[in-house]
């Protein structure tokens, strides 16, 4: 039954996407400095968005709508990668030192 299978796959993908977003948000709140937080956000949220978009594309009414949904993913990935790099570069220019474990210091 392909209909039920698509719904199941969509649900699994949506849940996985939510899980990645949750991990990214926990990282944003819990990681010690701007660089590690950026790492959590740009990595986990990109994967989360990919899962969400694929999950929603499986439920889309038409192929065009599904392709439009999937198009969001590479655009958001390109934007978030560039913005993450620019924020990290600005933080470095402002002299923010990357966090280290206390025993390494």
């Amino acid at each position, binding site marked *: 039954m392909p209909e039920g299978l698509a719904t199941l796959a969509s649900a699994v993908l949506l849940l996985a996407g939510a899980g990645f977003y949750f991990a990214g948000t926990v990282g944003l709140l819990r990681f010690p400095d701007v660089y590690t937080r950026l790492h959590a956000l740009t990595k986990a949220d990109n994967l989360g968005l990919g899962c969400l978009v694929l999950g929603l594309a499986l439920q889309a009414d038409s192929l065009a709508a599904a392709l439009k949904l999937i198009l969001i993913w590479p*655009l958001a990935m*390109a*934007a978030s990668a*560039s913005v993450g*790099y*620019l924020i990290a*570069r600005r933080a470095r220019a402002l002299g923010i030192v990357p966090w280290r474990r206390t025993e390494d210091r």
Partner: protein
Amino acid sequence: MSLALVFDLLLAIALLWSAWRALAAPEATRAVVMFIVFGLLLTLAWARLDAPDIALAEAAIGAGLTGALLLDALGAGRGERGGGERGRGEKDRAAARWRRPVLALSPLLAAVLVVALLKAPAPAVDLPAAVARNMAQSGVAHPVTAVLLNFRGYDTLLEVAVLLAALFGLLALAPGRPRAGAPGDPLLGTWARLAAAPMIVVAGYLLWAGAHQPGGAFQAAAVLAAAAVLLHLAGLLPACCGWGWPAACWCFSRWPCCRWATPRCSPIRPPGRGR
């Protein structure tokens, strides 16, 4: 309590919280970031209210374009003042003086608006019905576009004329020539070049799609302007054009035969040719 109601309540709380944070932020950068967050949340609120046209406009104009312009203005202010930490502190304090009056007045304004909305008399003409009756004459299938570009086309055209007059006034009064963007980061420049072309295509698509679904001229123009802002932020927009003719200059400088129209535009460097 249904799940949708919980979401709406959370959204309302987040809206008020981000608005408060934008006003109460001690420094301008943080206030601008919170303003962008506020705009994105407002987009969600419009989408929840079944107003996709306004949601699209808010996402493109309110959150995206205004946010980028505010960030650009922040960067410009910092550059001109030589990055004086003291000067910035004074500016922030000067801005803080306005905070209390604004905080006091905005609930008042909200209350006045709510009362006005509740006490509004019933409209003499049933406009939605009139629009629905005349949809066939408009030539488009989406009622918002039919009103904006067909039924009140002259209104919209005159709005553009007013904006154009305001722009000329601004350019005439602006001290000195418009500023060119600083040569930006190479990665930003590459992405701005790559993103500009799809953004122009998306603007065209939004205008075309507005005939039969949410979209239209405002949203398309916002995306087009965002492409210009992006190029400006990356330092790729010629200086002479500034904000007056960014799109026109960008197009004209591509074709040598049109250079006479924008004589002071320097052609945009093709990617990969170093600076």
